[in-house]
């Protein structure tokens, strides 16, 4: 009996040491005003840092920016991804090739995707502005215009993550039974009616899981912000994870950074619970 638990021991002890211990440690830090500038002195300040979360306009602003970003990105990725999935669900020549091509943006790391788009977004010799001017428009400052920059970042996220949504939805579509759809078509239903009343309800669990998935991942978006804008111009793209990083490792106020990090953790936990519930229902 003991020998069997021996197999799982490395895993459980690793999770305990690498996840639970730092989690507790992070909470401890967030209860202090630990700052690397104060030469390591950490005074217990109780829940002060957490009170800040509700009163500091900077933090509240970051939460709003993150909400805008997440909502826009997930919505666009869902619509775009569903469209691609529906297109690829047909029995057409070469569909398999397209399915493979679909993976490529996913293989690109968020950091490299930021670099790819940085190159496209360059105002003076960037390709996007050149194409716009070719079509008769006027080039824009993708990363420097405060009203535009959040959308530019959303576009990078959409580029990288739509294939994920498309692949998951495609798998869902392809696992559907054919009889209801065929029966409806025989009864004279149009394509749109079949989609609205049969296909969509049948894949609603998959849709829920993929939307929650993308949401919980979007909330802690960091790489593309750090590489493309560093939260700027001004604070137009200072999402909550980037703010935590800034407070903790640039201003070196680790107490505050940890508290913000914990907030992100709690929000992610809540969403994860929904994901697990949604997945269990499917069983």
């Amino acid at each position, binding site marked *: 009996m003991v020998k069997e638990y021996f197999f*799982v021991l490395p895993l459980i002890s*690793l999770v305990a040491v690498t996840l639970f211990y730092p989690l507790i440690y992070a909470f401890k830090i967030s209860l202090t005003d630990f700052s690397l500038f104060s030469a390591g002195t950490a005074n217990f300040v109780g829940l002060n840092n957490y009170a800040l979360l509700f009163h500091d306009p900077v933090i509240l602003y970051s939460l709003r920016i993150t909400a805008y970003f997440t909502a826009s990105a997930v919505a666009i990725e869902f619509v775009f991804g569903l469209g691609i999935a529906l297109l690829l669900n047909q029995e057409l020549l070469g569909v398999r090739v397209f399915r493979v091509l679909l993976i490529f943006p*996913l293989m690109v790391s968020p950091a*490299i995707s930021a670099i790819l788009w940085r190159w496209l977004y360059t105002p003076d010799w960037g390709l996007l502005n050149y194409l716009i001017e070719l079509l008769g428009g006027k080039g824009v400052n993708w990363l420097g215009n405060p009203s535009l920059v959040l959308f530019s970042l959303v576009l990078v996220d959409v580029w990288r993550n739509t294939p994920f949504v498309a692949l998951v939805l495609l798998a869902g579509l392809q696992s559907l039974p054919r009889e209801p759809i065929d029966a409806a078509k025989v009864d004279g239903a149009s394509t749109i009616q079949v989609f609205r009343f049969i296909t969509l309800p049948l894949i609603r669990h998959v849709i829920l899981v993929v939307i929650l998935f993308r949401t919980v991942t979007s909330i802690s978006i960091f790489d593309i912000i750090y590489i493309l804008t560093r939260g700027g111009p001004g604070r137009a793209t200072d999402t909550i*994870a980037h703010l935590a990083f800034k407070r903790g490792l640039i201003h070196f106020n680790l107490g505050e950074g940890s508290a913000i990090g*914990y907030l992100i953790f709690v929000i992610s936990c809540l969403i994860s619970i929904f994901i697990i519930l949604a*997945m269990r229902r499917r069983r």
Partner: protein
Amino acid sequence: MKIHKVLHKMGVYSGILGSMLFLMFPIIWMLFTSLKEHRQAIAVPPVWLFTPSLDAYRIAVLLSPLGREIINSFIIAGSATVLSIVLGSLAAYACVRIRIRGSEIISYMILSIRFFPAISLVFPYYLIMQSWGLYDTHIALILVYTAFNLPFATWMIMSFFQELPREVEESAMLDGCSQLKTLFRITIPIARGGIAATAILCFMLAWNEFLYAVVLTSQKAVTAQVGVAAYIENPATGTNWELISAGAIILIAPLMLFGIVVQRHLVRGLTFGAVS
């Protein structure tokens, strides 16, 4: 009726082609840029016809810190992958073959680790690595990536083990094999396709990681992801886009090849069994 069908097909194909163009174009443009010389790379209007040259790659890998950084990435991602697969196979075997009470709860806990926001743990990790003297070492990142990959690897390998018929293993054990021997001689070889796919996904996650690489390294253990990003920030190299592109393509290329190999299992890996 026939025209209707032809139009429909044309519509579908143009939709697919349009989407593929959008998804492929940034990568392709980056590839082109990496094959140009500097003046061609930043020329306006963009140069479409040019003689390709591998100069940018040569400079990026041999004459700049990027070569060393790529090696760092390989060492770190490779080690983390090996550790994750070995330890994960052991744990997966236990959870699947041996009746451990509460293994379903363990599975869901493992799942939820995937949604863990990376930013929430950077601060304790930063302090811990500093105090252990592991700041800016390969070991630090190997430990972190193994820790984050292991639950995922266990979960994936578990799902592959669950698909195997028990009869082969049972007959091996009847013939006198211990459980450990059965695992290595029989179960793993049969499941090697899925385990390979898991290994590729683990490698990908470690190779592409950015936040911890930025926080836990500064000079010696810098990974290629951080290195290429640093090119842009450095005013001296910020406009050498042919070099930056070369670096980016080098980072993307191995994963592209791996991705094609593993694409059958990719959906399962990405959604942890939520779909199919």
